[in-house]
């Protein structure tokens, strides 16, 4: 029998497959299940079947989607948000699930909190009723978003029936230029392969361009795997991963940590492993990238202009571009740097970690924002660190609101939203119609680019404002 090596994706799969049916579907063991306010639909299903939570010690609750960021008191009382938070508290308490709730100093966005607390580790299967669960793949975890029915199944059995995904490797050579970030890298990739370019695939990001990224950058890259349609994104763990995790609250300690690191070093694709699809590009070719339309694939470099529908041979593509430009209130052929914005949002599971806030602050230091804006750190831990580093002062001096942590204006479920017709420079992950509020218009970009847009009031190459600063 010929021996071909295994990919990291296969190694993780094989380690968790309890049994495989004749039709190729495997029952997969789930190491960590993360729940939030929206998980009530799953708890309702469990209750409806008279079931119970099988392994409450492997499930963790985090309050993030509905938490008020400006007035925490709204999280208590009789309002809608308070009710959603109470529901999460009741469901987790009844099942014996630990909760990092509204009043917990560790609270934040689930995909920021879990790595921060060492709940995310290499080699784990991690699921959550949220598509951006792919974020945790940055640590070499097999992490993916699930729906309420699947979440109910995990609550009741700690397993999921899954089909082995196709495997794609995205090899990124070179290193990013000054003022650029993983966000630019990810948007460049999505623009190239499309919002469904990785559908049906698990993606391994590899190469020197990935190794050079910090853990924060890797999380941004894996977070956005879903916006290319991937089932999940992941990166083989290395010394940077182990250093990040050492001493984290729920990570193994002492000898147990060393033992774990020894195992984790084996979590890499074999030299001769074969992938179903391979793609490569050079990070040094990446330029600051922003979106102009209503899908993350509607992205272009900052020196470009909005496309002209007339230039598309395919009528359905032309129609999509026409529709996107109409929704965004933009004419074909508009230089992106001529697009004026109404507000800025720096936050979300994509870009609200400490490194993101530092990048935004580097642009904003000593400057004023000419538009209103909100900065919501990814967690209260990040918030305290940013305050200690003086970053919050920079944001406030620039005239931006510095608020508490949550999903906030990325998904507009907690009262933070972009008014209809307004245009927002946003560090988030989705520029879908109405995503930031009914009628809102979103331009996705990196924290540095959002900060630059705040300073000039239009889409701007952040590198122009960083000269002499970084």
């Amino acid at each position, binding site marked *: 029998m010929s021996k071909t090596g295994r990919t990291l994706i296969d190694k993780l799969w094989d*380690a968790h497959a309890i049994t495989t049916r004749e039709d190729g579907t495997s029952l997969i063991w789930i190491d960590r299940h993360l729940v939030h306010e929206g998980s009530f639909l799953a708890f309702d299903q469990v209750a409806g079947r008279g079931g119970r939570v099988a392994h409450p010690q492997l499930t963790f609750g985090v309050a993030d989607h509905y938490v008020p960021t400006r007035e925490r008191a709204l999280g208590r009382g009789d309002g809608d948000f308070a009710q959603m938070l109470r529901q999460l508290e009741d469901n987790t308490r009844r099942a014996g699930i630990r909760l990092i709730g509204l009043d917990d100093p560790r609270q934040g966005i689930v995909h920021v909190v879990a790595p921060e607390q060492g709940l995310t580790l290499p080699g784990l299967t991690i699921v959550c*009723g949220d598509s951006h669960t792919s974020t945790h793949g940055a640590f070499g975890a097999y992490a993916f978003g699930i729906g309420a029915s699947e979440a109910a199944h995990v609550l009741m059995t700690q397993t999921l029936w899954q089909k082995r995904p196709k495997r794609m490797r995205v090899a990124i050579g070179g290193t990013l230029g000054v003022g650029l970030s993983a966000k630019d890298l990810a948007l460049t990739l999505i623009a190239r392969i499309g919002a469904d370019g990785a559908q049906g695939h698990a993606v391994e990001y590899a190469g020197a361009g990935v190794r050079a990224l910090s853990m924060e950058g890797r999380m941004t890259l894996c977070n956005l795997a879903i916006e290319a349609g991937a089932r999940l994104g992941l990166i083989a763990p290395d010394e940077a991963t182990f250093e990040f995790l050492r001493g984290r609250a729920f990570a193994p300690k002492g000898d147990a940590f060393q033992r774990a690191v020894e195992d984790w070093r084996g979590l890499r694709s074999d030299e001769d492993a074969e992938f179903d699809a391979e793609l490569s590009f050079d990070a040094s070719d990446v330029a600051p990238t922003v979106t102009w339309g209503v899908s993350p*694939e509607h992205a272009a470099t900052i020196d470009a202009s909005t496309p002209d529908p007339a230039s598309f041979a395919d009528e359905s593509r032309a129609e999509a571009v026409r529709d996107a430009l109409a929704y965004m209130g933009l004419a074909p052929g508009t230089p992106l740097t001529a697009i004026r914005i109404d507000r800025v949002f720096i936050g979300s599971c994509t870009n609200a970690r400490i490194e993101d806030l530092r990048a935004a602050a580097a642009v904003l230091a000593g400057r004023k924002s000419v538009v209103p804006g909100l900065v919501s750190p990814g967690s209260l831990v990040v918030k305290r660190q940013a305050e200690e580093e003086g970053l919050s002062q920079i944001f406030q001096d620039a005239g931006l609101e510095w608020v508490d942590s949550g999903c906030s204006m990325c998904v507009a479920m907690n009262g933070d939203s972009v008014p209809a017709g307004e245009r927002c420079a946003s560090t988030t992950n989705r520029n879908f119609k109405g*995503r930031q509020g009914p009628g809102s218009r979103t331009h996705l970009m990196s924290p540095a680019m959002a900060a630059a847009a705040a300073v000039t009031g239009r889409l701007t190459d952040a590198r122009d404002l960083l000269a002499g600063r970084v």
Partner: protein
Amino acid sequence: MERFTALETKAITLPQANIDTDQLIPARFLKHPRSEGYGRFLLHDLRRDASGSPRDHPIDHPTRAGAALLIARRNFGCGSSREGAVYALADFGVRCVAAPSFGDIFASNAVKNGLLPARVSEADVEALLTSQVVAGGGRVHIDLSAQTIIAGNLVVSFAIDPVWKTQLLNGWDDVDLTRAEQARIDRFRAEDASTRPWATPHE
């Protein structure tokens, strides 16, 4: 889970790519318990203006009343994992979406709720969209066993993961299938705890 075998129905067309789950159901409606019904939230902001008045969206047209097939362009249901997007379609009465491609999580959620995500080639979707039968509000036949959609003289085949096909045809419930594997799960768990001691949360 409701079975899906064959269906004779009118069709609704949404000739757009990338219809994301935020459009299928805006986030602000996700607070509601399923028991209240999600049909009125389907494509809410496309069907209604800011004051809540109907915009005369094609899916609300009287000639489409009771339609159980929705035809759309590529990457249908991309984005958020919210199962509410499937609830909204199902509670509105949609039993099958025909499109060239689907968001992975959406498709998985759809099958769990007895809704068929039928993968049709781009050319065939265009043919369906322009079919006289579909445009005229005529009846279309969907057959899961044969994997075909028939609109008048137009016969289009669709792809579906064979596992999902079997599941839809039989109305199988995942939890029941899993419970039958309990002994295997327990064995795996016991062995795994010794080979991967670091996988358990430490404090």
